[in-house]
Each structure stands twice: as structure tokens, then as C-alpha cells.
């Protein structure tokens, strides 16, 4: 072992003691910084993924839209889309706002007309149906026919309806008819059951009917509003969306494609911005820890001035003296990063227990989970974050060691030996 490394390690872990107090403080500082940074980034990633998942669940990967797409056209489009190798499944839909009433209180939710055979391949509707906790409210897609409707769980609660109850549905088309003095008769639909996506906006604003019912309500004949597409895992929704669009444009079809990424672009942008802002704020913790390393080592250079003189007398070159101190900060950084990663992984592993424990102290468990909608704290481990954090930390701690190292190397041996 080269002696600068030997001496650096000995100064961190002196003979006969487990570690030195000063280096322990520096190591813990770096460790805490790395740990907090990684925990925050991982949980933020988890939230991001959860939110993305929810967006995808609501939106499908890509939508193809074009006003009203006539029957012959969309059948062909659907076959074409399903033949593409990036596409896992595609399903037609018709969607629009309606007014619903049970008794006196009106609501204006969206109704989505779906093909019950296909919908499950694109959107996790069946999962949403299973999510419902109360047995009496549950139903399956088989219960959906041209007389029935499935409501979001919060919408059903607002309407104060249970399965078996009837809701009245009014559509914009009826307004047109009302203008021509026709009698306004709402469509009566029996509630088959409810679904629960876990997202309040969806659960309080959506109802599901068959495509045929929606076509009648909106006067679409056999046409649809669009096609939802689910891609194979790992496909880039944006790229596929763009190539589809080019395809339709070149054929002169008046269709528009929209990927979920594009549709939620600004929201997703803020999501990733938030993550980076957090990163830059948090890196200051490590910056502070690096300063403490620089201070500790500078003090150590001062304390050890005579020993540095001695090293020169024993045959040390300047570069080697600098190395002795620089290697200390590198060792502190490496240990801090290692312990920080270990600590972060441990804390993330038991994150729910930790949060439950903390909430238990304040007696706030129920309120917390209700407010926030997800079960447990999400986490998504990103190799890139771990590498980035480790790299930055090592960089900062190494730079922190350079200053004292250069000071040590600059000392004149004779004067160092004279110093008291």
C-alpha cells in the first residue's frame, strides 16, 4: 500500500480505536446528505410513476380522434391499428358530457361509451371494478348492457344511488330537440355497480355505458369519437403517435393523434422540474457536508503542521503529502456515500412502517391516507439517481479535500518543524 493511503486511512481509523471522532462527524454528514437526497428522489420518482400510471390508466397510451368517425372508417382504422407491431390493443370509444339526475340534484359527469369486449385490453377497468370495497356495490363488465350504467364510486355517492337504482340521463342532443319543441324525455339507466380508480377526479366525474348507448345518446349513428390505443411495454408513446399522425396526414385523413405524454406535457414537465429543483436544493446538504470536511481537514493540517514537517524529513515529497489529505476526503466521501446508500435503501425498505409510526404518534393515519389517495408511500428506484448522487458527492468531497491538501503541500518543511 502506498504510504499516503496508509496514513490517510490511519488518520481516519487510528490504531487501537475504531475511528476518529472528527472523521466520524464528517462521514455522518456526508451519509445524511446522501441518504436524504436518495430517499427524496426515490419517493419523488415513486410519486411521479404513480401519477403517470394514473394518467395512463385514465387516458390510454395514445388516442386517435377526429370529430365523429363514421362506422366504415373506424372499423378499418381499428383493424389497421391492431395490425401494427407496436400496438397491443385498440378499442373504440365515444365520450361526452351528460347531465344526470336522481331526484332533484343534477350532475354533469362524462359518459364513456365502451366496447366491453375490448376495453379491458386498453384500460384497467376491470381492476377498477375489483377495487370497490363494499360487496353490494361491486359488479363486473358482464353486467354492462344497453340498459345499465357503471358509475364512478364518488359520482354514485353524490347522486345517492345504489346498484339497482335508476338514474336519468340528459344529453346535449336532447337540447337540440327541445329547441324544436319536441318532448324532452331522459334516458333511464339502471345502475349496475360502481368502479374505483383511486383518483377522485375520475371517480367523481365518470360513468361508463356501452358504446351503443352512447351512440344513441349522442346521435352518432354507428360512428365513434375516437380510438384508444395500448402499446406494448417499452414503446415510446410519443414516437408512435407521431408516426401515426404522419401516416394519417399523408393519406389525407382528418385525424389527430395524441399521446398521453403530449396531452399531459406541462404537468409532466412540472413533475420532472420539481424533482430537479429538489435535487439542487438537496445537493446543498452535501455541499455543507463537504465544507465540514474542508474545515476538519484544514484544522487537521494546522494541528499536524509539525508532523507534516516530519514527513518531509522522513523523505516525503510534496505530492505525497497532498495525497495524504486528499485521500482522506476521498475516503470520507466514499464511506459517506456507501453508508448513505445503505441507509437510504434501509429507510426506503421500511418507509411505510416509518410513516405509519410517525403518523401514529400524531394520531393522523386515517386523515393522511384519505387525503392523499395512494396506499402507502410509493418509491421507484432509479439507477441514474443513485449514480448521479454518488458521483456529485464524491466530486464535492474530493474538491473539499483539495484545499487543505494544497495547504499542506505548500508548507515549508523547515518552518513546519519549527512551528509550535
Amino acid at each position, binding site marked *: 500500500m502506498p504510504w499516503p493511503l496508509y496514513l490517510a486511512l*490511519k*488518520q481516519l481509523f487510528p490504531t487501537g480505536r475504531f475511528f476518529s471522532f472528527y472523521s466520524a462527524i464528517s462521514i455522518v454528514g456526508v451519509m445524511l446528505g446522501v441518504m436524504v437526497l436518495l430517499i427524496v428522489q426515490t419517493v419523488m420518482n415513486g410519486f411521479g410513476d404513480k401519477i403517470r400510471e394514473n394518467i395512463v390508466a385514465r387516458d390510454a397510451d395514445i388516442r386517435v380522434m377526429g370529430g365523429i368517425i363514421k362506422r366504415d372508417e373506424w372499423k378499418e382504422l381499428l383493424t389497421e391499428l391492431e395490425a401494427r407491431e407496436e400496438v397491443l390493443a385498440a378499442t373504440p370509444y365515444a365520450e361526452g358530457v351528460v347531465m344526470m339526475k336522481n331526484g332533484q340534484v343534477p350532475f354533469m359527469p362524462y359518459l364513456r361509451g365502451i366496447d366491453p369486449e375490448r376495453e379491458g385490453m386498453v384500460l384497467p377497468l376491470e381492476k377498477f371494478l375489483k377495487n370497490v370495497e363494499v360487496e353490494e356495490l361491486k359488479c363486473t363488465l358482464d353486467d354492462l348492457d344497453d340498459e345499465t350504467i357503471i358509475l364512478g364510486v364518488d359520482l354514485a355517492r353524490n347522486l345517492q344511488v345504489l346498484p339497482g337504482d335508476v338514474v336519468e340521463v340528459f344529453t346535449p342532443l336532447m337540447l337540440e330537440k327541445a329547441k324544436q319543441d319536441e318532448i324532452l324525455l331522459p334516458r333511464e339507466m339502471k345502475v349496475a355497480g360502481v368502479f374505483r380508480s383511486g383518483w377522485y377526479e375520475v371517480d367523481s366525474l365518470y360513468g361508463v355505458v356501452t358504446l351503443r348507448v352512447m351512440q344513441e345518446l349522442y346521435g352518432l349513428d354507428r360512428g365513434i369519437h375516437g380510438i384508444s390505443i395500448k402499446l406494448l411495454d417499452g414503446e415510446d408513446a410519443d414516437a408512435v403517435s407521431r408516426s401515426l399522425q404522419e401516416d394519417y396526414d399523408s393519406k389525407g385523413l382528418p385525424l389527430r393523434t395524441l399521446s398521453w405524454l403530449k396531452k399531459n406535457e406541462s404537468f409532466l414537465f412540472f413533475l420532472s422540474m420539481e424533482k430537479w429543483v429538489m435535487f439542487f436544493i438537496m445537493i446543498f446538504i452535501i455541499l455543507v457536508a463537504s465544507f465540514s470536511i474542508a474545515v476538519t481537514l484544514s484544522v487537521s493540517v494546522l494541528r499536524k503542521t509539525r508532523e507534516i514537517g*516530519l514527513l518531509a524529513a*522522513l523523505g516525503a515529497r510534496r505530492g505525497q503529502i497532498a495525497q495524504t489529505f486528499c485521500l482522506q476526503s476521498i475516503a470520507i466521501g466514499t464511506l459517506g456515500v456507501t453508508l448513505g446508500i445503505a441507509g437510504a435503501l434501509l429507510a426506503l425498505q421500511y418507509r411505510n412502517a416509518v410513516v405509519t409510526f410517525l403518523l401514529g404518534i400524531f394520531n393522523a393515519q386515517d386523515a393522511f391516507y384519505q387525503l392523499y389517495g395512494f396506499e402507502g408511500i410509493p418509491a421507484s428506484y432509479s439507477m441514474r439517481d443513485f449514480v448521479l448522487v454518488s458521483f456529485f458527492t464524491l466530486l464535492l468531497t474530493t474538491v473539499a479535500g483539495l484545499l487543505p491538501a494544497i495547504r499542506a503541500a505548500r508548507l515549508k*518543511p523547515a518552518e513546519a518543524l519549527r512551528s509550535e
Partner: protein
Amino acid sequence: MNDTVNTVLQAKGVEKSFQGPDGLTIDVLRSADLKVHSGESLSIRGESGSGKSTFLNVISWLDQPDKGLVFWDGLEVPALSRQELARRRSEVLGFVFQSYYLMPELNVLENVVMASRMIRMIGRAEWNRAEQLLEKVGLQERLKQLPSKLSGGERQRVAIARALMNRPSVILADEPTGNLDEETASLVMELLLNLSRKEEASLVLVTHNPTFAARTDRQVMLSGGKFEEVS
């Protein structure tokens, strides 16, 4: 025998001055000449501030003279490359300082071995030699102890063992007993004189104590920046 071979250390016309705090130059060494022969012991005396420590720094090239030449084992020092200089220094010279300068984070044995560690890969041979040297200074029982647990005399004995570790040609000792009580001082001095003779190293001893100075083969006095032989 050839004169140069016989001389392990030589200073020729060395001059050194410092800038004092009031801006005046203090001429500490004025054309100082000194030869140290192989195997001999030499004591340097002089008033406080006469430049004894400065001379030791210059002759070990820890500080550069303004003028003059320094030879180690007949080699002209300023001609050496930095790397060569550092290596030669640890091979030719052993240091014992007034305050012992042991590494506080290394134990006694590791402190002694450190001298070798700095110039080569160390192995069994080095550990054995260090143990033998520590035995010779009477510290065989304290090998694993940290310097902070030792008395001043014991620390100085460790420093002596360390100075001898690389079988140097010369040991430079700057008031090695300055921090010790009388009894311990004579014990340490005894060790230093005997061991350097046994290990065939010359000894350059800076001391205020005439009794200790009298025990060396040759005595010189530093005054007015020059050496004078004392007979």
C-alpha cells in the same frame, strides 16, 4: 582512505539569512564549513539563536542555503532531482527532534516502521528490524502502545529507533534531551550515543549540555555564523 568517501556529510561555505520581523536581514550562517566523518560523533554547541537548528535544516536540505554547497555521502545535493532528493534523504539521514514528533494515530511499532514505509514496500524484514530496534531502546513491551500513553523519555526512545530504522549514514539530533528531566536525559543520551555507534551511523548532536557534548568524539562551537573546533 580517500577523503570524500570518508566524509558522510559536508557543508561548504554555507550562508543563510532570514528576513526579521522588522524587515532587517539577520545573517545566521556566514560561510559555515563542516565535515562529518564516517562513524564519528560530533557535538554542536552555541548560544540560543546562533543558528544550530538552521544549520541542521540546511544540511538536510529541508531549507535551502542562500549560498554554499552540501554533500551527502559525497553527492552534491542541489544536483539531485526532487524524487532522488527525498529518497536519499531518508536513506542517508535520520532525525531526532527535541519534541519527538511521533504520529499520534500510529502505535510505537508502526511509527518506527513508517520510516521504511516511505521509501519502499515493507515486509517481514522491516517489522523484524523495527522490533529489534525497539528492543534495543528497551521498549519491547510497549510495541502496540500509542505515543500518547508514553512518557517523554519513552517517546524519545521511539524516535531514536525510528531514526535508525533505515540504517542512515548520519543521525541529526537537535537537542534531543531538551524536554527531559536530568535523569531521563542521560539515559536517552546514553542510548543515542551507544546505538549510533553500534549501528555504524555518525551522530551530529546539537546540545547545550557540556557534559553530553564532552562525550562525543569531536566538539564544535557555532558562533558568528561559523564553526570553531573546541579542543
